[in-house]
């Protein structure tokens, strides 16, 4: 509270009043909700992985790609129907951290900016949040691949 020194007595009194009436953040409850909803999303993802392993020619190693695509697709549908908003409000990080949060970030931005047109609205804003994630993923993969290639050329790996 270093700002307190600069504040006038009236401001300090207001802060006290504010603190008295401020609602406490239910951190534990939020964490539990995030844990269970995030866990549920991951369980559904695991079920989808097993589905691909059982019924298609995917191994444990290769089933990851279609699983991610399916989960993102489901999250996009849920966002479009307006269900994911409620889930996000209830579970917070539990719905944002799994890969389904990525689908939600893309589609919700696209829906939000639809009124501004397809190119400048949807196209320009769709990847505002998800774009940085994609860029970071692609760039770091490139750097790691570069290092690995150099090391392999030297015979280190």
């Amino acid at each position: 509270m270093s700002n307190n020194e600069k504040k006038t007595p009236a401001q300090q009194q207001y802060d006290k009043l504010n603190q008295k009436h401020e609602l406490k953040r239910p951190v534990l409850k939020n964490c539990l909700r995030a844990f269970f909803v995030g866990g549920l999303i991951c369980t559904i993802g695991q079920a989808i992985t097993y589905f691909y392993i059982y019924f298609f020619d995917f191994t444990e190693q290769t089933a990851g790609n279609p699983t991610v695509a399916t989960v993102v697709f489901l999250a996009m549908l849920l966002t479009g129907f307006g269900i994911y908003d409620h889930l996000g409000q209830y579970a917070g990080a539990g719905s944002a951290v799994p890969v389904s949060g990525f689908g939600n970030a893309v589609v919700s931005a696209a829906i939000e900016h639809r009124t501004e047109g397809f190119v400048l609205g949807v196209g320009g804003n769709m990847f505002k949040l998800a774009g940085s994630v994609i860029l970071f993923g692609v760039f770091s993969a490139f750097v790691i691949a570069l290092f690995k290639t150099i090391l392999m050329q030297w015979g280190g790996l």
Partner: protein
Amino acid sequence: MRAVIYLLTAVLLAGCGFQKEREDSRLALLKTTNPEPIQIERDGISVEKIREEVEAINEIYDAAVIKGDHNVLVAYKVRHLNRFQMKKIEKSLKERLDKEYDDETFVVSSDYKIFLEAVRLREDMDAGKTNEKEADKRLHEIIRLKREKT
């Protein structure tokens, strides 16, 4: 909301609908199956012995062994807490088998899909649906699947 719940339930229950004759393989990824090893090619080493040897390793709890014309496939499950060392276990098992049976080519995998396919092959052979020639062909397909990266 209801439509989404129906869709998810349909996806989750899809596995219960068909393939009634395959009792073991249906739950092969969830419980210990202990499938009988398959010896397509009779010459050489005994698959039973390999299976015993693989199952004696602490980190491994369920093993399927198939011996074909050119390769011996060893598929196994790793205990959950040891799954962090999966690559290490695979490497040491392969080295050990290669050293012990130097005239055989071993394909070693801890992938669930490979294990599942080995169980399915065993069941098809037991049911008389697959003869030895077809089994060898299926073994090659399983090995190709194991090597696939994408």
